[in-house]
């Protein structure tokens, strides 16, 4: 069976648009394909696309870990940031 994760450069991340977790829509994280060599900015774009958000608005991305939350810098490659397969993320309107 084909599987995106078989490529060692590939991972799945699970972003949620923060706003819908705070209003009555209450939709949770969804699965999105990513690559370890993407920059933080490219990852943000992939998440904005997956959530079909208004591209004229500005967003930032935050990594959620059990013990901390980390703002994802746009220019760094996500492997260096330490993003892992299965990571939950939040998309936050600026």
């Amino acid at each position: 069976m084909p599987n995106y994760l078989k490529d060692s450069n590939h991972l799945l991340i699970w972003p949620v648009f923060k706003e819908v977790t705070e209003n009555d829509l209450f939709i949770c994280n969804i699965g999105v394909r990513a690559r370890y060599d993407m920059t933080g900015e490219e990852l943000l774009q992939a998440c904005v696309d997956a959530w079909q958000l208004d591209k004229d608005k500005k967003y930032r991305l935050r990594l959620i870990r059990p013990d901390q939350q980390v703002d994802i810098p746009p220019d760094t490659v996500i492997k260096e940031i330490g993003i892992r397969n299965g990571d939950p993320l939040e998309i936050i309107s600026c």
Partner: protein
Amino acid sequence: MAARMGLKQKYHAMTRDLMWDSQEFDMKRVYPLIEKEGIILKDPSRWEDPFRMAYNQYVKVQAEKDLLYHAVRNAFEANEGHAKVVDARWYEGVKAFAIAVQPAEYQAHRLMAYIGRNIPIEAIRFATINQCLDELRHAQIEIKHYAHMSKKIDGLHAYAQTNENLWFNTVTKSFFEDALSAGPFEALVAIAFSFEYVFTNILFLPFATSAAAVGDDNFVAVGKSVQSDESRHMALGMSALKMLLEEDDRNVPIIQRWLDKWYWRAYRIFSVVATLIDYYPRIRPISWKRAFKTYVEDQVFEGLFKDFRKYGIRLPLHAEDSIKEKEHYSHAVMRILNHAKHVNAFRGFRLHPDDYEWLSSEYPDTFERYYAPFFRRMDDHVLAVATPGIPAICTVCQIPLEFPDPDNPTRFWTQYSEYNNKTYMTCSPGCKHIFEQEPHKYAQIWWPAEAYVSGEFGENLPDDLFKYFGFAPEEANEYYSSRDYERWLQYRKQLGLDQIFTGR
């Protein structure tokens, strides 16, 4: 035989006197799991099967139950019963039941066989074998029911495939695979006590009452036939638990740990039942909130667990959370189902003014404030609330991570754990606790969302998934604009049932 035997002697002669201890093999090799869980048994042979039924009686009673069901079904079909229900959206709920509950029945039969094989106590063995056969009967009677429903209704024509592959069923699978991969005593506490004793009343009584209220006599017959075995199953759960607690004090902390885990596990698997009671029937005889109060809080927590105090057993760890959640449970779960209604084999539906009225009056503190705005979004556009992608699920119960914190209902209850250099998400403190007791176990889950997004069933999501699920996109989505609803209206019209008579 000269003298007639009494009931007890007769029962012994036909059941437990047939056992023997192995002489050729080491008992520990014949029953390799018996000491693995730390349970200590001193003299288990003094325990009696609570029901004391011999096989010939069992077969006779069960055969009568089956015949009765088929008689009702024949009459229901001959009398155009389907056309006469008050609102056929009810069947969308029965489909959800079909995919969530029937596979549980089938798995329960395997689990009972596993327990009977591995625990060499006559009383337990005979009761588990009876229940094993019961569960297979339930699975088959339900499948028969769906085969007949399928003549009139979408969504069940590839039933075996749908119930195996739809994400919704992984919730059931994870519960039973968890129990089947536990030791036999833990499995016994999981199924016989937590599942059967605590929760099956709330499954079959209110839902069968709802079926009667909407006029689905056919389902009433299924529910009653199944429920009629439950008193036996509940008796097994109770006597097994008492036996384990009384055989040795050192068993108590182990049992407490299992009750903490399996109470929450069973409670979560029953979440869909909350929606089946509160949402799908157009006429509701009882709400989840009231049913939970009666069957769980009053009967189990206030009644049974008070008796358990003498053994040193307290309420399950997250009992309080489930009590708080009763104000939210059905609404939160219906919201989850609506997020995914375009990919489910059962449809969601717009609520009518009478639905809003009932939900508001039954849930005055929560429905209007936290949930009605969500359901109203669908008034103009049936897919207004659809998730834009494949949702993440709880690593333990496998339900999408969309439960609100009952203390703060506008916030997610989602919990995060770190294990083996990965982040794991769970839906609630109850599931987080279970994960953290055995992270190596839950880290092995087959996560449908991950498989879907990885492209295992096609690149074009969600469209490519339908082939794998075994139904078409037209069989999903909104009920009141579906072809099923249109057909039902036509059917009623042909019978003249669309006429409305008012006045004296």
